[in-house]
């Protein structure tokens, strides 16, 4: 049985060396970072080191990095925190309609609590138009939260332009960069990003660790009350080994980012080209140009993504029909619908997300299996048979 993993946008395999160090830290550096004695100081040193490592990949300052329990938590904190801290200035938030649910559902929650939210549409390539953003700005706009790169279709938003607009209008800019860190160059100063969320398990670190970058000078309400951890804003004894592992994973990734992205991009292009060529009535969803190197989101007309996924699973190949967080619900993806796709086509979509451990051989197996699966499912599909009979 194959064991091929093509769902790196859902989560990634932890790096061997990161895991080993994490286990050692868990065992040996058990002190509480808030304690004054040696093992406490050792734990504190791990946190300090990780803070620098994470800051480096964002070109930020270590004092601007706050560790959280996940990317979703970082998004929640950023959006709810800014909404509260800047309530006196206004109650309007701008986001896009292709955000991750960590952002969308937080915005919906705020809407129920007296805030107004504008959900910007995207064009058929899955990109927010800057003109739409400019038009949405009001005097009472306090926050723009637009993702760096989309988790389903991998499209990269014009972050530099958005940051510029935000700065010109004196509006705080948060970006969910969970998919982007390590896959694209990020410079929070050059891009005028005020807050940024990231997650360890998307970049070959452990699950249960995230971070929020908060620009110096931006007011942000504490998220969890308690002790003095994370400058008193996110209390609770730190996940020391996990945070150290995040820092370690980020540093390793930063050193080899270009090489990794090139490899991943080559595999991606090979898979896209072959699938589109071999399987008729298929289409790539979202811009190919402004896209994460590892993301493929492809629709096959006349079939359901669900059956495709299950058959792939039975062949030992892991992929996804949307984001892992929504695939339990089986509703058509809000992202694909936002591109203007019909329900039927959105249902027949597959996300293949490539990571640094994938090989060309695996890509070839995927292509062969997928071609056979689509053929089989189409043969059983009444829609396909109707279509063929009309030709």
């Amino acid at each position: 049985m194959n064991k091929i993993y093509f769902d790196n946008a859902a989560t990634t395999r932890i790096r061997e060396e990161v895991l080993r160090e994490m286990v050692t830290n868990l065992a040996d550096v058990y002190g509480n970072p808030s304690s004054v004695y040696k093992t406490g100081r050792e734990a504190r040193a791990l946190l300090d080191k990780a803070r620098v490592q994470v800051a480096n990949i964002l070109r930020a300052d270590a004092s601007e990095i706050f560790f959280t329990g996940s990317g979703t938590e970082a998004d929640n904190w950023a959006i709810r925190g800014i909404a509260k801290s800047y309530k006196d200035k206004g109650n309007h938030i701008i986001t896009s309609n292709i955000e991750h649910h960590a952002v969308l559902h937080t915005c919906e929650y705020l809407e129920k609590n007296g805030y107004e939210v504008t959900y910007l549409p995207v064009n058929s390539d899955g990109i927010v138009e800057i003109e739409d953003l400019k038009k949405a700005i009001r005097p009472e706009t306090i926050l723009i939260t637009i993702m760096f790169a989309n988790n389903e279709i991998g499209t990269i938003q014009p972050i530099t332009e958005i940051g510029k607009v935000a700065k010109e209008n004196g509006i705080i800019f948060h970006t969910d960069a969970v998919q982007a860190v390590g896959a694209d160059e990020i410079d929070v100063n050059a891009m005028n990003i005020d807050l940024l969320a990231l997650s360890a398990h998307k970049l070959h670190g452990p699950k249960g660790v995230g971070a929020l970058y908060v620009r110096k000078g931006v007011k942000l309400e504490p998220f969890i009350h308690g002790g003095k951890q994370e400058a008193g804003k996110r209390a609770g004894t730190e996940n020391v080994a996990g945070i150290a592992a995040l820092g370690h994973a980020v540093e390793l990734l930063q050193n080899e980012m270009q090489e990794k992205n090139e490899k991943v991009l080559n595999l991606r292009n090979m898979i896209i080209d072959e699938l589109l060529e071999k399987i008729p009535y298929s289409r790539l969803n979202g811009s190919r140009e402004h896209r994460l190197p590892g993301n493929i989101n492809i629709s096959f007309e006349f079939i359901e993504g669900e059956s495709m996924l299950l058959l792939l699973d039975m062949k030992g190949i892991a992929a996804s029909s949307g984001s892992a967080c929504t695939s339990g619900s089986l509703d058509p993806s809000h992202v694909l619908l936002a591109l203007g796709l019909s329900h039927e086509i959105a249902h027949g979509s597959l996300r293949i997300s490539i990571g640094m451990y994938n090989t060309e051989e695996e890509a070839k197996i995927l292509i062969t299996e997928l071609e056979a699966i689509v053929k089989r499912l189409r043969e059983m599909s009444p829609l396909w048979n109707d279509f063929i009979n009309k030709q």
Partner: protein
Amino acid sequence: MVAMSTKKKRVIVGMSGGVDSSVCAHILKEQGYDVVGVTMKIWQNDDMANDGGCCGLSAVNDARRVADSLSIPFYVLDFREEFKKTVIDYFIREYFKGRTPNPCIACNRHVKWEAFLEKSLGLEADFIATGHYAKIERLENGRFAIKGSFENKKDQSYALYNLTQFQLEKTLMPLGNYSKEEIRDIAKSIGLDVANKPDSQEICFIPDNDYGNFLKNNSDYEALTGDFVDINGNKIGTHNGIIYYTVGQRKGLGAFGKPMFVKNINPTKNEVMLGSDSDVFENSLICDDINMMAIGEIVGEIDVLAKTRYSQKLAKAKIKKDGERIICNFLEPQRAITPGQSAVFYDEIGNILCGGTIT
């Protein structure tokens, strides 16, 4: 590598998290099949998901745990649309036509043996399997038939009369050879923690059992008050809307000075006819939308054992064809023969010969 000449047959088992379907998956695995567990997602909203009995969210969690303990792959597949269209909408429509539907029969026919079977075949399954207490047998005439068990209190053959020959050929029902007690014992012996779960309730999408309220809240139809009439057509009272009544019903009719029962419902006139207990007995019925099972056709008149409701005892009868319909004459009058319910006809050893919907 060794050639896979003896590739295991794949069976997709519909799992509800309950004892029956869990043990069903276990038995098939023991028999050497490549077993895959699936829970059908049919709930339409969160209320239903939480207390929807056999098919709610807790059912998914139970089924997943069972599948894990059996080391079989497990998936949740979406059948919400099919369930809405072919079961819930039908259920509502029938009540407003003055009939009493059987949603389990509709679900078996359209959701389990059309949508679920079709999807399973797409997933390279050789068979689907369910935890029904019924047997599928291949008869001497080459046809497949469900064989009910006259002794087994859990016999579920009645709700399965609609299956086609193709569907029967593609279905395994391993529990037909066991009693409920034996199944519970097997569950215990393999450590399934579902062993003491209660049986699922009557209608999964109406957890509180308040049909009237469900129909009112889930349709655009309006329940109009109308006349209660006696068997001669004279008005004797006012009813709350035909959807609140079923043939044979005694409770909730009001006071008439003597026990009264619903004899029939006339949706065109919006009338509910009441009569005495003896008035609700009938000697015959006609059914349509026929499915032929153990026999391909009815030649002349044949002796059968008939069942006109899930809970009803078998009654001796003779059936004959009348165009596309079946006319059934009972040897003794039967109580509360209800339009919308199904009439299922068995031979003397329990094979389902055929069945249809009572008109």
